[in-house]
């Protein structure tokens, strides 16, 4: 059952205040995924502090990188159910987990961090993983 919207709002704003576009409906996810050009990052946000407590600040740190993806969006697992299901359906070979982070290039999944690669790690460690991936996959993209 979803948590109270009031309780979850700060967790949404932690990402949206860093320029992350929040996708709350399946239609919004469809439209976001339909854009194929360039680099993009999709964050599956989560209430769970066991991992999301590092995922959000880690993503915020990483987004300060000059190589940050051109488009960044999030869905909120356990809150925006249809949007999350639609986002997960785009990656049918990947088991669902939240939080998790997908990096796409020209519409193709090129990098994925599942929940268990976030658990127990610091925001700085996660940001380092992400910025490394940004550097590898943004090289051929004209900014």
């Amino acid at each position: 059952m979803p948590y109270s919207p009031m309780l979850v709002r700060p967790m949404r704003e932690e990402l949206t205040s860093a320029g992350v576009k929040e996708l709350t409906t399946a239609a919004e996810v469809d439209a976001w995924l339909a854009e194929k050009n360039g680099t993009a990052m999709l964050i599956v946000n989560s209430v769970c502090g066991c991992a999301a407590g590092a995922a959000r600040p880690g993503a915020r740190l990483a987004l300060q990188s000059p190589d940050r993806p051109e488009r960044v969006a999030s869905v909120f697992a356990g809150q925006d159910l249809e949007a999350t299901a639609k986002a997960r359906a785009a990656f049918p070979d990947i088991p669902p987990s939240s939080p998790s982070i997908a990096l796409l290039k020209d519409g193709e999944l090129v990098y994925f961090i599942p929940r268990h690669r976030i658990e127990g790690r610091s925001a700085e460690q996660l940001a380092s993983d992400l910025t490394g991936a940004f550097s590898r996959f943004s090289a051929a993209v004209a900014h």
Partner: protein
Amino acid sequence: MGTFHQDRGELHGITVVVETDASEVWVGRCDTADDRGVVLRDADVHRESSGRDAFLRSASELGVWPRHRQVLIPSQSVASIRRLGEL
């Protein structure tokens, strides 16, 4: 931003690998680990000797499919428990 979870031990919420004395390998999110055993949520299991390494390799890379919403592995069956992220 903190968690809403109560204190359920250091492995609560952590994705773990539990090996049993029956040669099962379970992977799932630990809810509790205490004298009764290990409760996993959204878990998958591998029961055959062949394919064990491939199962763990895949789990380590991408995670597991939640084929078992919740399972209790009795403590007397638990041979080892470790974090999936450390594989």
